[in-house]
Every structure is written in C-alpha cells, then in structure tokens.
C-alpha cells in the first residue's frame, strides 16, 4: 500500500543513532548499495532492497528523487517466487521417472530424492518470475520520524533489518510502551510509576 493511495496503513518509527554527514549523500549511498536486485533470471527465491517511489520497478534511482523538502521518501521492495506445490509435484514426478528409467532401478534413495527435489526447485525458480511487493516510507530526518506504509509484521521486520544494514541506524517501533519512553515528557518518578502499572477495571 503506497503513500499516495486513497486509504493507507501506517506504522510509525523513531530513528535512533547518528548518520554521517552530509546526510543526503549518506542516504543516497545506503539506498544504492542496498537497492533491490532483480531475481527473475536467477535461482534466488527472494530479494529485498530499496527502490524509488516513482519508478519502483526500475531500481537504479537514476532520474528519480528521494529527497522532498526535509523528507526522504523511498520504498522497500520485497520480491518473492512462489512455486505452486502442484507444479513442483508434476516436475518432480517427471524427473523421478526419467532418473529411474536411466538407472534401470525401481526406487531412489532418500538422499537422491532430496537432491532431485532441490534440482527441480532450482530449475523452476529460474523459470518463474518473482512477485514484487512495494511498501513506501517517509523519513523526516529532522524529527527522526519514519512513517512506513504497511502494518504487516513481515514487511516491518524486513524494513527494520534493511534500514539498519543500509544506514547503520536503528528503527524503534512506536507502540504504547515505547511512545511513553521516547515521545512523552514523563519524569523519572512518573516512568517508575508507569513500569509498575497494571490493568484498570472500569466495571464493578
């Protein structure tokens, strides 16, 4: 779901740490170094990387801007290949039959079956195109806020990991406990009270 969609979901993060200066250059370097790598002609089943918001399927960032005012805006792209179980079964059956005929045997050992399955999976992965999922994000460098346009757990985990790898900065997800510590102005005494809170019952 993109930030330009008519209806969006947002997970909010706080950026922890200092990025090297000049910031825009450091961000550009992190984005280009970790841009998405196409896997359609490859045996890989999954690829994760950055892409631009306006040309998400041409991830070279050439001619695309990622800086808008004091915001950095770009996208996380996750490409996955999913081999349907029935397709795998079909080609595994065919290859097993060919192997048995060639070796004039009536069965394959456990190791042979495993190796054949890996070979068939790899061959199919080369032939099947990946399915891309694109998730936009807005990073306000000055306020240290990141708005990530997905609430899916898997995409949030991919984001946290890739962000750290790209910019050497940690993303702290904002939820009630972290909001209380990162965003509020509670005193140390109030924070101690908070730590020991338990659920209120509004019914008798």
């Amino acid at each position: 779901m993109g930030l330009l969609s008519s209806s969006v979901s947002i997970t909010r993060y706080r950026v922890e740490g200092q990025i090297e200066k000049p910031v825009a250059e450091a961000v550009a370097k992190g984005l280009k170094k970790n841009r998405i790598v196409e896997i359609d002609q490859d045996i890989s089943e999954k690829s994760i990387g950055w892409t631009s918001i306006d040309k998400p399927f041409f991830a070279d960032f050439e001619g695309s801007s990622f800086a808008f005012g004091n915001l950095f805006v770009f996208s996380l792209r996750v490409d996955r290949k999913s081999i349907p179980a029935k397709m795998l079964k079909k080609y595994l059956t065919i290859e097993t039959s060919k192997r048995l005929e060639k070796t004039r045997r009536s069965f394959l050992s456990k190791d042979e079956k495993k190796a054949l399955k890996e070979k068939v999976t790899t061959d199919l992965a080369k032939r099947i195109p990946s399915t891309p999922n694109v998730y936009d994000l807005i990073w306000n460098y000055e306020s240290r806020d990141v708005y990530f346009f997905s609430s899916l757990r898997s995409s949030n985990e991919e984001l946290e990991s890739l962000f750290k790898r790209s910019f050497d900065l940690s993303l702290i997800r904002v939820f009630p406990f972290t909001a209380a510590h990162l965003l509020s102005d509670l005193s140390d005494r109030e924070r101690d009270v908070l730590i020991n809170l338990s659920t209120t019952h509004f019914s008798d």
Partner: protein
Amino acid sequence: MLDLAVAYNRYRFIGDEFLTWLWFVIENEQSALKSADPDCTALEIGSRIVLENRKKKSLERITIRGDDAGLEEGRLALKKGALLTELSLVFKTGESQWQFSIKGESLNLSNFRVPGPAFPTSPEEMEGVILSKYENYNKISVFIENIFKNFLRLRVSSKWSTKVVPGIKKWVQATDV
C-alpha cells in the same frame, strides 16, 4: 528499557485503556481535545469499534461496525469488563476531515483517508502531492501523540484513581441497556 517484544505484550493494556479513555473524552470532554490540536473542531467515533474482554477465561471479542451502528452494545461490553482495542475515528477541522482507525496495542493507523490531492497528474506535481500527503498524515500522528501524552500524564498521576476512573465508571454504569 525492557526487551521490546516483552514490553509490547506486557503493556498492551495501556493502549487499550487509552482508547477506552478516549471514547469517554469524546463523549464527555470534547473541549479537552483542543489542547492536542487547536484546529480540531470535532472528533467523532467512526464506523467501527472493537472491544476485547480479557476478564473471562477465554478472550471475548466484540466488533461493532456500520455507519449507523449503535454504540450501546459497546458500552454494555465495557460494563462487563471489556476494553477498546480498536477505534475508528473522524477528525474534523473547519473545512476538512480525516478518517482513520487506531489500534490500542500498536498505535498503528489504518484505513487512513486524508483530504487534499490524491495523485499527481504530472511528474512536476509529485513533490507537492507528497508534501501535502505528509502534512496530512503528520497532523493526525501529532494529534494522537499529544492526546496520548495527555492520557499518560493522567494515567501515572493520582488523579487517575481518584477522579478519572470513577468518572468513567459512572459513565459506563449510566449506560441504559
């Protein structure tokens, strides 16, 4: 700080209490919302609320949806010990409105619709539309942050048990169902 995964589950009730308190504020103290955003002319319950009752042996979840949905059932669930876990809201200023749902456990915003231009019609408009969208998302994010801060200050003060909780209990008990 605690391990974040542990803290997420240990303190999820704070978010649920926040939403329950917010419902009470919306119905009884709209003027208090001005301190979170002076532009706010109204904050209304939207088309969906979700409550969960964890006092029972098994988790009981109540979902109320629909534009004309009565909230009596929700108040009845509160009376039985449930807390709000998700709340759909409409934030209004003089001329515009923002619609969104907020989850108590994560404070994530979903079904978020903002005023202003939807899509750029040319590459030159891209920056303007992105900045406008950001301003609109940020307005609600800051509003929620401010109202949550107000809630937290109350929650860790003695006022919570002496004034706020009795007030909410009275409101819940006054529910005519």
